[in-house]
Protein backbone atom coordinates (compact mmCIF):
# COMPACT_ATOMS: atom_id res chain seq x y z
CA UNK A 1 0.00 0.00 0.00
CA UNK A 2 2.87 2.33 0.84
CA UNK A 3 4.29 1.73 -2.59
CA UNK A 4 0.94 2.47 -4.18
CA UNK A 5 0.70 5.82 -2.47
CA UNK A 6 4.29 6.78 -3.10
CA UNK A 7 3.72 6.01 -6.74
CA UNK A 8 0.62 8.17 -6.69
CA UNK A 9 2.66 10.96 -5.17
CA UNK A 10 5.42 10.54 -7.71
CA UNK A 11 2.90 10.81 -10.50
CA UNK A 12 1.37 13.95 -9.07
CA UNK A 13 4.77 15.56 -8.78
CA UNK A 14 5.63 14.62 -12.33
CA UNK A 15 2.30 15.97 -13.47
CA UNK A 16 2.90 19.31 -11.80
CA UNK A 17 6.38 19.46 -13.24
CA UNK A 18 4.98 18.84 -16.69
CA UNK A 19 2.48 21.64 -16.81
CA UNK A 20 3.63 24.87 -15.36
CA UNK A 21 2.59 27.56 -17.83
CA UNK A 22 4.80 30.57 -17.24
CA UNK A 23 7.27 30.28 -14.45
CA UNK A 24 9.04 33.59 -14.83
CA UNK A 25 6.39 35.90 -13.54
CA UNK A 26 8.49 39.00 -13.11
CA UNK A 27 9.17 37.76 -9.64
CA UNK A 28 11.77 40.29 -8.67
CA UNK A 29 9.47 43.27 -8.96
CA UNK A 30 9.82 44.12 -5.29
CA UNK A 31 13.56 44.58 -5.56
CA UNK A 32 13.01 47.47 -7.93
CA UNK A 33 15.51 50.29 -7.67
CA UNK A 34 14.81 53.81 -8.86
CA UNK A 35 16.94 53.29 -11.96
CA UNK A 36 15.19 50.29 -13.41
CA UNK A 37 12.32 50.58 -15.85
CA UNK A 38 9.81 47.74 -16.08
CA UNK A 39 8.25 47.43 -19.52
CA UNK A 40 5.22 45.14 -19.93
CA UNK A 41 4.59 44.35 -23.59
CA UNK A 42 3.56 41.72 -26.13
CA UNK A 43 5.97 38.90 -26.85
CA UNK A 44 8.38 39.68 -29.70
CA UNK A 45 7.32 43.32 -29.74
CA UNK A 46 10.61 45.14 -29.22
CA UNK A 47 12.92 46.21 -32.03
CA UNK A 48 16.53 44.94 -31.94
CA UNK A 49 19.03 46.88 -29.88
CA UNK A 50 16.50 49.57 -28.99
CA UNK A 51 16.38 48.82 -25.31
CA UNK A 52 20.16 48.68 -25.03
CA UNK A 53 20.33 52.11 -26.68
CA UNK A 54 17.82 53.54 -24.22
CA UNK A 55 19.68 51.99 -21.31
CA UNK A 56 22.84 53.71 -22.43
CA UNK A 57 21.12 57.00 -23.18
CA UNK A 58 19.17 57.25 -19.95
CA UNK A 59 21.60 55.36 -17.71
CA UNK A 60 18.95 52.90 -16.56
CA UNK A 61 18.21 49.23 -16.81
CA UNK A 62 15.11 48.09 -18.71
CA UNK A 63 13.41 44.87 -17.70
CA UNK A 64 10.89 43.41 -20.15
CA UNK A 65 8.01 41.16 -19.20
CA UNK A 66 5.50 39.92 -21.76
CA UNK A 67 1.81 39.09 -22.06
CA UNK A 68 -0.04 37.38 -24.90
CA UNK A 69 -3.44 39.07 -24.84
CA UNK A 70 -5.05 42.28 -23.66
CA UNK A 71 -7.13 40.26 -21.26
CA UNK A 72 -4.02 38.71 -19.74
CA UNK A 73 -2.53 42.18 -19.30
CA UNK A 74 -5.67 43.45 -17.59
CA UNK A 75 -6.02 40.30 -15.51
CA UNK A 76 -2.49 40.59 -14.15
CA UNK A 77 -2.87 44.25 -13.28
CA UNK A 78 -6.32 43.74 -11.76
CA UNK A 79 -5.11 40.91 -9.62
CA UNK A 80 -2.62 43.29 -8.06
CA UNK A 81 0.60 43.02 -10.08
CA UNK A 82 2.45 46.27 -9.47
CA UNK A 83 5.89 47.53 -10.34
CA UNK A 84 5.40 47.86 -14.08
CA UNK A 85 6.04 51.33 -15.47
CA UNK A 86 5.02 51.21 -19.13
CA UNK A 87 2.57 48.85 -20.86
CA UNK A 88 1.11 48.44 -24.36
CA UNK A 89 -2.65 47.76 -24.32
CA UNK A 90 -4.71 47.87 -27.52
CA UNK A 91 -7.29 50.57 -28.21
CA UNK A 92 -10.42 49.15 -26.54
CA UNK A 93 -8.38 47.95 -23.56
CA UNK A 94 -7.09 51.49 -22.95
CA UNK A 95 -10.61 52.65 -22.11
CA UNK A 96 -11.23 49.66 -19.86
CA UNK A 97 -7.95 50.19 -18.02
CA UNK A 98 -8.64 53.90 -17.68
CA UNK A 99 -12.08 53.19 -16.24
CA UNK A 100 -10.49 50.79 -13.78
CA UNK A 101 -8.15 53.56 -12.65
CA UNK A 102 -5.00 51.68 -13.65
CA UNK A 103 -3.44 54.40 -15.80
CA UNK A 104 -1.44 57.49 -14.86
CA UNK A 105 -2.12 60.86 -16.46
CA UNK A 106 0.44 61.64 -19.14
CA UNK A 107 2.40 64.86 -19.07
CA UNK A 108 2.54 65.69 -22.77
CA UNK A 109 5.26 68.29 -22.22
CA UNK A 110 7.55 65.32 -21.54
CA UNK A 111 6.39 63.48 -24.67
CA UNK A 112 6.92 65.94 -27.55
CA UNK A 113 6.76 63.13 -30.12
CA UNK A 114 2.99 63.07 -29.63
CA UNK A 115 2.91 65.89 -32.20
CA UNK A 116 4.18 63.55 -34.92
CA UNK A 117 1.27 61.09 -34.87
CA UNK A 118 -0.17 59.86 -38.14
CA UNK A 119 -3.29 61.79 -39.04
CA UNK A 120 -5.69 58.85 -38.75
CA UNK A 121 -4.35 58.09 -35.27
CA UNK A 122 -4.91 61.54 -33.85
CA UNK A 123 -7.61 62.12 -31.23
CA UNK A 124 -9.00 58.60 -31.31
CA UNK A 125 -12.40 58.19 -29.68
CA UNK A 126 -11.15 56.08 -26.76
CA UNK A 127 -8.71 58.79 -25.59
CA UNK A 128 -9.06 61.97 -27.68
CA UNK A 129 -6.84 64.13 -25.47
CA UNK A 130 -4.00 61.63 -24.89
CA UNK A 131 -4.74 61.77 -21.20
CA UNK A 132 -3.60 58.18 -20.67
CA UNK A 133 -2.35 56.75 -23.93
CA UNK A 134 -0.51 57.42 -27.16
CA UNK A 135 -0.85 55.15 -30.20
CA UNK A 136 2.37 53.21 -30.89
CA UNK A 137 1.96 50.49 -33.53
CA UNK A 138 -1.14 50.03 -35.62
CA UNK A 139 -2.65 48.11 -38.51
CA UNK A 140 -5.62 46.30 -39.94
CA UNK A 141 -7.20 42.86 -39.91
CA UNK A 142 -7.74 41.28 -43.31
CA UNK A 143 -7.14 38.12 -45.30
CA UNK A 144 -3.75 36.64 -46.06
CA UNK A 145 -4.00 34.30 -49.07
CA UNK A 146 -1.79 32.24 -51.32
CA UNK A 147 -2.19 33.73 -54.80
CA UNK A 148 -0.91 30.50 -56.40
CA UNK A 149 -4.04 28.73 -55.17
CA UNK A 150 -6.57 31.54 -54.80
CA UNK A 151 -6.07 32.86 -58.31
CA UNK A 152 -8.78 35.51 -58.55
CA UNK A 153 -7.69 38.06 -55.96
CA UNK A 154 -10.49 38.12 -53.37
CA UNK A 155 -12.06 41.47 -52.54
CA UNK A 156 -14.79 40.33 -50.17
CA UNK A 157 -15.04 38.43 -46.90
CA UNK A 158 -17.35 36.05 -48.79
CA UNK A 159 -14.27 34.20 -50.08
CA UNK A 160 -14.06 32.72 -46.58
CA UNK A 161 -17.42 31.09 -47.29
CA UNK A 162 -16.34 29.61 -50.64
CA UNK A 163 -16.72 25.80 -50.45
CA UNK A 164 -13.87 25.47 -52.93
CA UNK A 165 -11.45 26.23 -50.08
CA UNK A 166 -12.95 23.82 -47.57
CA UNK A 167 -10.36 22.82 -44.97
CA UNK A 168 -7.90 25.44 -46.20
CA UNK A 169 -9.19 28.39 -44.17
CA UNK A 170 -8.05 29.62 -40.78
CA UNK A 171 -9.84 32.19 -38.62
CA UNK A 172 -8.53 34.15 -35.63
CA UNK A 173 -9.33 32.46 -32.32
CA UNK A 174 -10.80 35.70 -31.03
CA UNK A 175 -14.51 36.18 -30.61
CA UNK A 176 -14.72 39.89 -31.37
CA UNK A 177 -12.55 39.60 -34.49
CA UNK A 178 -14.43 36.59 -35.85
CA UNK A 179 -17.80 38.24 -35.27
CA UNK A 180 -16.45 41.41 -36.90
CA UNK A 181 -16.05 39.46 -40.16
CA UNK A 182 -19.63 38.22 -40.11
CA UNK A 183 -21.09 41.53 -38.99
CA UNK A 184 -19.25 43.61 -41.58
CA UNK A 185 -20.14 41.24 -44.38
CA UNK A 186 -23.79 41.66 -43.32
CA UNK A 187 -23.29 45.43 -43.59
CA UNK A 188 -23.54 45.92 -39.82
CA UNK A 189 -21.24 47.62 -37.35
CA UNK A 190 -18.77 45.26 -35.75
CA UNK A 191 -19.73 46.77 -32.40
CA UNK A 192 -23.40 45.86 -32.78
CA UNK A 193 -25.26 45.30 -29.52
CA UNK A 194 -28.48 44.08 -31.14
CA UNK A 195 -29.31 40.50 -30.06
CA UNK A 196 -31.00 39.62 -33.38
CA UNK A 197 -28.01 40.89 -35.38
CA UNK A 198 -25.52 38.98 -33.24
CA UNK A 199 -27.70 35.89 -33.58
CA UNK A 200 -27.71 36.07 -37.37
CA UNK A 201 -23.96 36.70 -37.38
CA UNK A 202 -23.63 33.50 -35.37
CA UNK A 203 -25.76 31.60 -37.91
CA UNK A 204 -23.51 32.90 -40.67
CA UNK A 205 -20.39 31.76 -38.82
CA UNK A 206 -21.91 28.35 -38.10
CA UNK A 207 -22.48 27.91 -41.82
CA UNK A 208 -18.80 28.74 -42.36
CA UNK A 209 -17.46 26.39 -39.70
CA UNK A 210 -17.35 23.20 -41.84
CA UNK A 211 -14.94 25.02 -44.16
CA UNK A 212 -12.66 26.24 -41.35
CA UNK A 213 -9.59 24.15 -40.66
CA UNK A 214 -8.81 25.86 -37.37
CA UNK A 215 -9.23 28.94 -35.22
CA UNK A 216 -5.83 30.35 -34.27
CA UNK A 217 -4.38 33.72 -33.40
CA UNK A 218 -0.74 32.60 -33.44
CA UNK A 219 0.05 30.02 -36.07
CA UNK A 220 -1.54 31.31 -39.26
CA UNK A 221 1.61 32.86 -40.74
CA UNK A 222 3.40 29.50 -40.51
CA UNK A 223 0.34 27.69 -41.85
CA UNK A 224 0.22 30.01 -44.86
CA UNK A 225 3.90 29.42 -45.54
CA UNK A 226 3.57 25.64 -45.26
CA UNK A 227 0.47 25.66 -47.45
CA UNK A 228 -1.63 24.06 -44.72
CA UNK A 229 -4.13 26.89 -45.22
CA UNK A 230 -4.51 29.15 -48.26
CA UNK A 231 -6.82 31.77 -46.73
CA UNK A 232 -6.10 33.16 -43.29
CA UNK A 233 -8.11 35.75 -41.40
CA UNK A 234 -5.48 37.68 -39.48
CA UNK A 235 -3.45 40.74 -38.59
CA UNK A 236 -1.30 42.30 -41.29
CA UNK A 237 2.05 41.96 -39.50
CA UNK A 238 2.21 38.16 -39.37
CA UNK A 239 0.95 37.96 -42.95
CA UNK A 240 3.77 40.32 -43.98
CA UNK A 241 6.22 37.95 -42.27
CA UNK A 242 4.72 35.03 -44.20
CA UNK A 243 5.16 36.98 -47.48
CA UNK A 244 8.88 37.29 -46.81
CA UNK A 245 9.12 33.50 -46.76
CA UNK A 246 6.66 32.73 -49.53
CA UNK A 247 6.28 35.49 -52.13
CA UNK A 248 2.99 34.14 -53.51
CA UNK A 249 1.27 35.21 -50.30
CA UNK A 250 -0.79 38.39 -50.56
CA UNK A 251 -2.88 40.48 -48.19
CA UNK A 252 -6.24 42.11 -48.76
CA UNK A 253 -8.66 44.10 -46.64
CA UNK A 254 -12.09 43.20 -48.05
CA UNK A 255 -14.34 45.89 -49.46
CA UNK A 256 -16.87 45.47 -46.63
CA UNK A 257 -14.21 46.77 -44.22
CA UNK A 258 -13.02 45.36 -40.95
CA UNK A 259 -11.04 46.05 -37.83
CA UNK A 260 -8.40 48.75 -37.47
CA UNK A 261 -6.34 48.59 -34.31
CA UNK A 262 -3.62 50.48 -32.47
CA UNK A 263 -1.50 49.30 -29.59
CA UNK A 264 -0.91 52.24 -27.30
CA UNK A 265 1.80 53.22 -24.85
CA UNK A 266 0.52 53.90 -21.34
CA UNK A 267 2.15 54.69 -18.01
CA UNK A 268 0.70 52.75 -15.11
CA UNK A 269 -0.64 54.49 -12.07
CA UNK A 270 1.40 52.19 -9.84
CA UNK A 271 4.65 53.18 -11.57
CA UNK A 272 7.24 54.55 -9.18
CA UNK A 273 9.20 56.20 -11.98
CA UNK A 274 6.65 58.19 -13.92
CA UNK A 275 9.16 60.69 -15.31
CA UNK A 276 11.44 57.95 -16.53
CA UNK A 277 8.42 56.08 -17.91
CA UNK A 278 7.36 59.10 -19.96
CA UNK A 279 10.91 59.57 -21.18
CA UNK A 280 10.78 55.94 -22.37
CA UNK A 281 7.40 56.48 -24.07
CA UNK A 282 8.82 59.46 -25.90
CA UNK A 283 11.88 57.44 -26.87
CA UNK A 284 9.80 54.64 -28.40
CA UNK A 285 7.86 57.22 -30.41
CA UNK A 286 11.02 58.82 -31.81
CA UNK A 287 11.06 58.71 -35.63
CA UNK A 288 14.26 56.72 -35.95
CA UNK A 289 13.46 54.33 -33.15
CA UNK A 290 9.96 53.92 -34.59
CA UNK A 291 11.32 53.22 -38.07
CA UNK A 292 13.68 50.56 -36.77
CA UNK A 293 10.81 48.99 -34.87
CA UNK A 294 8.59 48.91 -37.95
CA UNK A 295 11.29 47.47 -40.16
CA UNK A 296 11.89 44.63 -37.74
CA UNK A 297 8.35 43.84 -36.50
CA UNK A 298 6.50 44.64 -39.73
CA UNK A 299 3.84 46.62 -37.90
CA UNK A 300 3.33 50.25 -38.92
CA UNK A 301 4.57 52.91 -36.55
CA UNK A 302 2.36 55.75 -35.34
CA UNK A 303 5.05 58.36 -36.07
CA UNK A 304 4.26 59.84 -39.50
CA UNK A 305 7.86 60.91 -40.01
CA UNK A 306 9.01 57.33 -39.68
CA UNK A 307 7.52 56.69 -43.13
CA UNK A 308 10.45 58.54 -44.67
CA UNK A 309 12.91 56.20 -42.97
CA UNK A 310 11.43 52.74 -43.51
CA UNK A 311 12.44 50.82 -46.65
CA UNK A 312 10.12 51.14 -49.64
CA UNK A 313 9.10 47.47 -49.61
CA UNK A 314 7.80 47.92 -46.07
CA UNK A 315 6.05 51.19 -46.79
CA UNK A 316 4.36 49.83 -49.92
CA UNK A 317 3.23 46.58 -48.32
CA UNK A 318 -0.54 46.92 -47.70
CA UNK A 319 -0.27 44.37 -44.88
CA UNK A 320 1.93 46.82 -42.98
CA UNK A 321 0.89 50.32 -44.11
CA UNK A 322 -2.75 50.22 -45.28
CA UNK A 323 -3.52 52.63 -48.14
CA UNK A 324 -5.73 55.59 -47.25
CA UNK A 325 -8.61 54.18 -49.26
CA UNK A 326 -8.62 51.16 -46.94
CA UNK A 327 -8.47 53.18 -43.74
CA UNK A 328 -11.74 54.91 -44.59
CA UNK A 329 -13.70 51.67 -44.40
CA UNK A 330 -12.22 50.38 -41.16
CA UNK A 331 -13.84 50.40 -37.74
CA UNK A 332 -12.37 50.34 -34.21
CA UNK A 333 -13.47 47.63 -31.81
CA UNK A 334 -15.09 49.31 -28.82
CA UNK A 335 -16.32 47.94 -25.54
CA UNK A 336 -19.90 46.71 -26.00
CA UNK A 337 -20.81 46.73 -22.30
CA UNK A 338 -23.32 44.09 -21.25
CA UNK A 339 -23.73 42.91 -24.85
CA UNK A 340 -20.43 41.07 -24.39
CA UNK A 341 -22.57 38.33 -22.80
CA UNK A 342 -24.38 37.89 -26.12
CA UNK A 343 -21.09 37.53 -27.98
CA UNK A 344 -19.82 35.18 -25.32
CA UNK A 345 -22.79 32.89 -25.63
CA UNK A 346 -22.80 33.02 -29.42
CA UNK A 347 -19.09 32.18 -29.47
CA UNK A 348 -19.59 29.20 -27.17
CA UNK A 349 -22.42 28.00 -29.41
CA UNK A 350 -20.20 28.40 -32.45
CA UNK A 351 -17.55 26.23 -30.81
CA UNK A 352 -20.11 23.56 -29.96
CA UNK A 353 -21.80 23.52 -33.36
Amino acid at each position, binding site marked *: *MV*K*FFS*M*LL*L*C*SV*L*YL*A*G*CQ*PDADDAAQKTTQTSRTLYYFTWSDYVGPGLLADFEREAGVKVVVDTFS*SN*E*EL*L*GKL*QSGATGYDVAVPSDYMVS*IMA*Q*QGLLAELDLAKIPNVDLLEEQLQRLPFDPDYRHSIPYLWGTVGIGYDSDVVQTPPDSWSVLWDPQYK*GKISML*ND*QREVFAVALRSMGKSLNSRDPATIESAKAKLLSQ*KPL*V*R*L*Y*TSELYDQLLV*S*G*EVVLAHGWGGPVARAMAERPSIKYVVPKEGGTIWADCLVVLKSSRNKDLAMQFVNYLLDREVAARTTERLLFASSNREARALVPAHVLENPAIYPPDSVIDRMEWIT*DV*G*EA*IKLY*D*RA*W*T*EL*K*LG
Partner: protein
Amino acid sequence: MPDWLLAPTLLWMGVFFFAPLFLMLIISFASRGTYGGIEWTLSFANYRALADTLYLQIYFRSLVFATITTALCLLLGFPLAYHIARAPARWQGVWLILVMIPFWTNFLVRTYAWIFILRTEGLLNTVVMGLGLRQDPIEILYTDAAVLIGLVYGYLPFMVLPLYAAIERLDVSVVEAAWDLYASGWSVFWRVVLPLVKPGVIAGCLLVFIPSLGAFITPDLLGGARSMMVGNLIQHEYLVIRDWPFGSAVAFVLMGMVMLGVVGYLKLSGRKM
Protein backbone atom coordinates in the same frame (compact mmCIF):
# COMPACT_ATOMS: atom_id res chain seq x y z
CA MET B 1 3.36 9.94 16.02
CA PRO B 2 2.87 13.48 17.32
CA ASP B 3 0.12 15.41 15.59
CA TRP B 4 2.15 18.58 15.22
CA LEU B 5 4.06 16.95 12.35
CA LEU B 6 0.97 17.70 10.30
CA ALA B 7 1.06 21.37 11.13
CA PRO B 8 3.38 22.65 8.35
CA THR B 9 1.41 20.90 5.63
CA LEU B 10 -1.93 21.90 7.10
CA LEU B 11 -0.81 25.49 7.27
CA TRP B 12 0.51 25.40 3.71
CA MET B 13 -2.60 23.76 2.31
CA GLY B 14 -4.86 25.98 4.38
CA VAL B 15 -3.31 29.22 3.23
CA PHE B 16 -2.45 28.35 -0.34
CA PHE B 17 -5.13 25.86 -1.28
CA PHE B 18 -8.24 25.85 0.88
CA ALA B 19 -8.45 29.61 1.39
CA PRO B 20 -8.29 30.42 -2.36
CA LEU B 21 -10.68 27.58 -3.07
CA PHE B 22 -13.14 28.92 -0.51
CA LEU B 23 -12.78 32.39 -2.00
CA MET B 24 -13.55 30.94 -5.43
CA LEU B 25 -16.63 29.26 -4.02
CA ILE B 26 -17.89 32.61 -2.73
CA ILE B 27 -17.01 34.36 -6.00
CA SER B 28 -19.02 31.77 -7.89
CA PHE B 29 -22.16 33.25 -6.26
CA ALA B 30 -21.25 36.84 -7.19
CA SER B 31 -21.71 38.46 -10.59
CA ARG B 32 -19.57 40.15 -13.20
CA GLY B 33 -19.23 43.93 -13.09
CA THR B 34 -19.57 45.79 -16.38
CA TYR B 35 -15.80 46.04 -16.83
CA GLY B 36 -15.00 42.58 -15.63
CA GLY B 37 -14.74 43.22 -11.90
CA ILE B 38 -16.72 41.30 -9.30
CA GLU B 39 -20.02 42.56 -7.96
CA TRP B 40 -20.92 41.19 -4.56
CA THR B 41 -24.60 40.56 -5.01
CA LEU B 42 -24.77 36.91 -4.13
CA SER B 43 -27.18 34.61 -5.93
CA PHE B 44 -27.46 31.22 -7.62
CA ALA B 45 -27.66 32.92 -11.02
CA ASN B 46 -24.37 31.45 -12.29
CA TYR B 47 -25.38 27.92 -11.37
CA ARG B 48 -28.82 28.38 -12.88
CA ALA B 49 -27.22 29.64 -16.09
CA LEU B 50 -25.10 26.49 -16.18
CA ALA B 51 -28.18 24.25 -16.30
CA ASP B 52 -28.53 25.38 -19.92
CA THR B 53 -28.24 22.58 -22.51
CA LEU B 54 -25.42 24.56 -24.13
CA TYR B 55 -23.14 24.11 -21.13
CA LEU B 56 -24.40 20.62 -20.32
CA GLN B 57 -23.30 19.61 -23.81
CA ILE B 58 -19.80 20.90 -23.09
CA TYR B 59 -19.62 18.92 -19.85
CA PHE B 60 -20.90 15.85 -21.65
CA ARG B 61 -18.36 16.25 -24.45
CA SER B 62 -15.55 16.50 -21.92
CA LEU B 63 -16.78 13.40 -20.09
CA VAL B 64 -16.82 11.45 -23.34
CA PHE B 65 -13.30 12.58 -24.24
CA ALA B 66 -11.94 11.81 -20.78
CA THR B 67 -13.59 8.37 -20.76
CA ILE B 68 -12.21 7.41 -24.17
CA THR B 69 -8.77 8.71 -23.19
CA THR B 70 -8.79 6.65 -20.00
CA ALA B 71 -9.90 3.51 -21.83
CA LEU B 72 -7.23 3.90 -24.51
CA CYS B 73 -4.53 4.57 -21.90
CA LEU B 74 -5.55 1.44 -20.01
CA LEU B 75 -5.53 -0.62 -23.20
CA LEU B 76 -2.09 0.63 -24.19
CA GLY B 77 -0.67 0.97 -20.72
CA PHE B 78 -1.49 -2.45 -19.30
CA PRO B 79 0.62 -4.57 -21.68
CA LEU B 80 3.45 -2.06 -21.39
CA ALA B 81 3.36 -2.01 -17.58
CA TYR B 82 3.14 -5.81 -17.53
CA HIS B 83 6.14 -6.11 -19.78
CA ILE B 84 8.19 -3.68 -17.69
CA ALA B 85 7.25 -5.33 -14.41
CA ARG B 86 8.19 -8.77 -15.74
CA ALA B 87 11.47 -7.64 -17.32
CA PRO B 88 14.81 -8.35 -15.59
CA ALA B 89 15.46 -5.85 -12.82
CA ARG B 90 18.14 -3.86 -14.62
CA TRP B 91 15.90 -3.45 -17.68
CA GLN B 92 13.01 -2.25 -15.54
CA GLY B 93 14.92 0.90 -14.69
CA VAL B 94 15.69 1.57 -18.33
CA TRP B 95 12.07 1.10 -19.39
CA LEU B 96 10.78 3.30 -16.57
CA ILE B 97 13.20 6.07 -17.48
CA LEU B 98 11.97 5.84 -21.07
CA VAL B 99 8.39 6.22 -19.84
CA MET B 100 9.34 9.25 -17.79
CA ILE B 101 11.70 11.01 -20.24
CA PRO B 102 8.89 13.03 -21.83
CA PHE B 103 8.39 14.81 -18.49
CA TRP B 104 11.79 16.39 -18.84
CA THR B 105 10.28 18.59 -21.55
CA ASN B 106 7.51 21.11 -21.15
CA PHE B 107 4.03 19.78 -22.03
CA LEU B 108 3.42 22.67 -24.42
CA VAL B 109 6.57 21.90 -26.38
CA ARG B 110 5.61 18.24 -26.65
CA THR B 111 2.16 19.19 -27.90
CA TYR B 112 3.73 21.41 -30.56
CA ALA B 113 5.84 18.44 -31.62
CA TRP B 114 2.61 16.57 -32.37
CA ILE B 115 1.61 19.35 -34.73
CA PHE B 116 4.75 18.65 -36.74
CA ILE B 117 3.98 14.95 -36.80
CA LEU B 118 0.30 15.20 -37.73
CA ARG B 119 0.14 18.11 -40.13
CA THR B 120 -0.49 17.66 -43.86
CA GLU B 121 3.18 17.81 -44.80
CA GLY B 122 4.27 16.33 -41.48
CA LEU B 123 6.11 13.20 -40.52
CA LEU B 124 3.07 10.92 -40.56
CA ASN B 125 2.04 11.87 -44.08
CA THR B 126 5.60 11.84 -45.39
CA VAL B 127 5.97 8.25 -44.21
CA VAL B 128 2.52 7.05 -45.24
CA MET B 129 2.70 8.61 -48.70
CA GLY B 130 6.38 7.78 -49.13
CA LEU B 131 5.56 4.11 -48.63
CA GLY B 132 2.77 4.47 -51.16
CA LEU B 133 0.12 3.44 -48.64
CA ARG B 134 -2.02 6.40 -49.59
CA GLN B 135 -2.26 8.87 -52.44
CA ASP B 136 -3.77 11.80 -50.51
CA PRO B 137 -2.51 12.99 -47.16
CA ILE B 138 -4.42 12.04 -44.01
CA GLU B 139 -6.05 15.20 -42.71
CA ILE B 140 -5.95 14.38 -39.03
CA LEU B 141 -4.57 17.53 -37.40
CA TYR B 142 -7.29 19.83 -36.02
CA THR B 143 -9.81 17.02 -35.60
CA ASP B 144 -11.19 15.26 -32.53
CA ALA B 145 -8.93 12.32 -33.36
CA ALA B 146 -5.88 14.55 -32.99
CA VAL B 147 -7.16 15.74 -29.61
CA LEU B 148 -7.50 12.12 -28.46
CA ILE B 149 -4.02 11.24 -29.71
CA GLY B 150 -2.62 14.19 -27.78
CA LEU B 151 -4.51 13.34 -24.61
CA VAL B 152 -3.56 9.67 -24.66
CA TYR B 153 0.06 10.58 -25.34
CA GLY B 154 0.09 13.14 -22.53
CA TYR B 155 -1.47 10.99 -19.85
CA LEU B 156 -0.23 7.48 -20.70
CA PRO B 157 2.64 7.62 -18.15
CA PHE B 158 0.12 8.30 -15.37
CA MET B 159 -1.48 4.99 -16.25
CA VAL B 160 1.74 3.04 -16.70
CA LEU B 161 3.45 4.00 -13.45
CA PRO B 162 0.77 2.93 -10.96
CA LEU B 163 0.06 -0.20 -13.04
CA TYR B 164 3.74 -1.05 -12.97
CA ALA B 165 3.83 -0.58 -9.19
CA ALA B 166 0.89 -2.95 -8.79
CA ILE B 167 2.02 -5.58 -11.27
CA GLU B 168 5.55 -5.59 -9.91
CA ARG B 169 4.19 -6.67 -6.50
CA LEU B 170 2.09 -9.39 -8.08
CA ASP B 171 3.06 -12.78 -6.67
CA VAL B 172 4.09 -14.93 -9.65
CA SER B 173 3.48 -18.13 -7.78
CA VAL B 174 -0.23 -17.31 -7.56
CA VAL B 175 -0.39 -16.91 -11.32
CA GLU B 176 1.56 -20.12 -11.80
CA ALA B 177 -0.81 -21.88 -9.45
CA ALA B 178 -3.72 -20.75 -11.61
CA TRP B 179 -2.03 -22.19 -14.70
CA ASP B 180 -1.30 -25.43 -12.84
CA LEU B 181 -4.95 -25.70 -11.99
CA TYR B 182 -5.79 -25.54 -15.70
CA ALA B 183 -7.28 -22.08 -15.78
CA SER B 184 -7.57 -20.71 -19.31
CA GLY B 185 -5.43 -17.70 -20.27
CA TRP B 186 -8.49 -15.50 -20.10
CA SER B 187 -9.54 -16.61 -16.64
CA VAL B 188 -5.97 -16.31 -15.31
CA PHE B 189 -6.06 -12.71 -16.38
CA TRP B 190 -9.64 -11.98 -15.41
CA ARG B 191 -9.89 -13.89 -12.13
CA VAL B 192 -6.33 -13.86 -10.80
CA VAL B 193 -4.18 -11.09 -12.24
CA LEU B 194 -6.76 -8.33 -12.53
CA PRO B 195 -8.15 -8.56 -8.97
CA LEU B 196 -4.61 -8.45 -7.61
CA VAL B 197 -3.55 -5.40 -9.59
CA LYS B 198 -6.86 -3.61 -9.15
CA PRO B 199 -5.43 -0.85 -6.93
CA GLY B 200 -3.02 0.05 -9.73
CA VAL B 201 -5.82 0.07 -12.31
CA ILE B 202 -7.95 2.33 -10.12
CA ALA B 203 -5.11 4.74 -9.40
CA GLY B 204 -4.10 4.85 -13.06
CA CYS B 205 -7.63 5.47 -14.28
CA LEU B 206 -8.16 8.29 -11.79
CA LEU B 207 -4.84 9.91 -12.62
CA VAL B 208 -5.69 9.89 -16.32
CA PHE B 209 -9.40 10.64 -16.12
CA ILE B 210 -9.27 13.69 -13.85
CA PRO B 211 -6.68 15.78 -15.69
CA SER B 212 -8.00 14.87 -19.13
CA LEU B 213 -11.45 16.05 -18.05
CA GLY B 214 -9.99 19.52 -17.47
CA ALA B 215 -7.58 19.58 -20.44
CA PHE B 216 -7.46 22.82 -22.40
CA ILE B 217 -4.12 23.10 -24.19
CA THR B 218 -4.59 19.95 -26.25
CA PRO B 219 -8.04 20.84 -27.66
CA ASP B 220 -6.75 24.30 -28.55
CA LEU B 221 -3.52 23.27 -30.24
CA LEU B 222 -4.32 19.88 -31.74
CA GLY B 223 -8.07 20.39 -32.14
CA GLY B 224 -7.55 23.80 -33.77
CA ALA B 225 -9.88 25.37 -31.18
CA ARG B 226 -12.80 24.16 -33.28
CA SER B 227 -14.55 22.76 -30.25
CA MET B 228 -14.55 23.41 -26.54
CA MET B 229 -13.99 21.21 -23.54
CA VAL B 230 -14.79 22.38 -20.00
CA GLY B 231 -11.18 23.50 -19.53
CA ASN B 232 -11.47 25.80 -22.53
CA LEU B 233 -14.75 27.19 -21.23
CA ILE B 234 -13.20 27.99 -17.84
CA GLN B 235 -10.17 29.58 -19.49
CA HIS B 236 -12.44 31.58 -21.79
CA GLU B 237 -14.61 32.84 -18.93
CA TYR B 238 -11.63 33.79 -16.79
CA LEU B 239 -9.23 35.23 -19.33
CA VAL B 240 -11.29 36.44 -22.29
CA ILE B 241 -14.66 37.44 -20.88
CA ARG B 242 -13.22 38.15 -17.42
CA ASP B 243 -16.36 36.73 -15.86
CA TRP B 244 -14.67 35.26 -12.81
CA PRO B 245 -17.93 34.44 -11.03
CA PHE B 246 -19.29 32.36 -13.90
CA GLY B 247 -15.87 30.78 -14.53
CA SER B 248 -15.72 29.80 -10.85
CA ALA B 249 -19.17 28.27 -11.03
CA VAL B 250 -18.13 26.23 -14.09
CA ALA B 251 -15.03 25.07 -12.21
CA PHE B 252 -16.97 24.11 -9.10
CA VAL B 253 -19.51 22.08 -11.02
CA LEU B 254 -16.59 20.29 -12.68
CA MET B 255 -15.01 19.64 -9.29
CA GLY B 256 -18.30 18.35 -7.95
CA MET B 257 -18.64 16.00 -10.91
CA VAL B 258 -15.11 14.69 -10.39
CA MET B 259 -15.66 14.12 -6.68
CA LEU B 260 -18.97 12.34 -7.20
CA GLY B 261 -17.40 10.32 -9.96
CA VAL B 262 -14.40 9.30 -7.87
CA VAL B 263 -16.48 8.36 -4.84
CA GLY B 264 -18.89 6.42 -7.02
CA TYR B 265 -16.04 4.68 -8.81
CA LEU B 266 -14.32 3.68 -5.58
CA LYS B 267 -17.64 2.43 -4.15
CA LEU B 268 -18.34 0.38 -7.26
CA SER B 269 -14.88 -1.13 -7.26
CA GLY B 270 -15.32 -2.03 -3.60
CA ARG B 271 -12.47 0.03 -2.19
CA LYS B 272 -12.48 1.94 1.02
CA MET B 273 -11.18 5.51 0.93
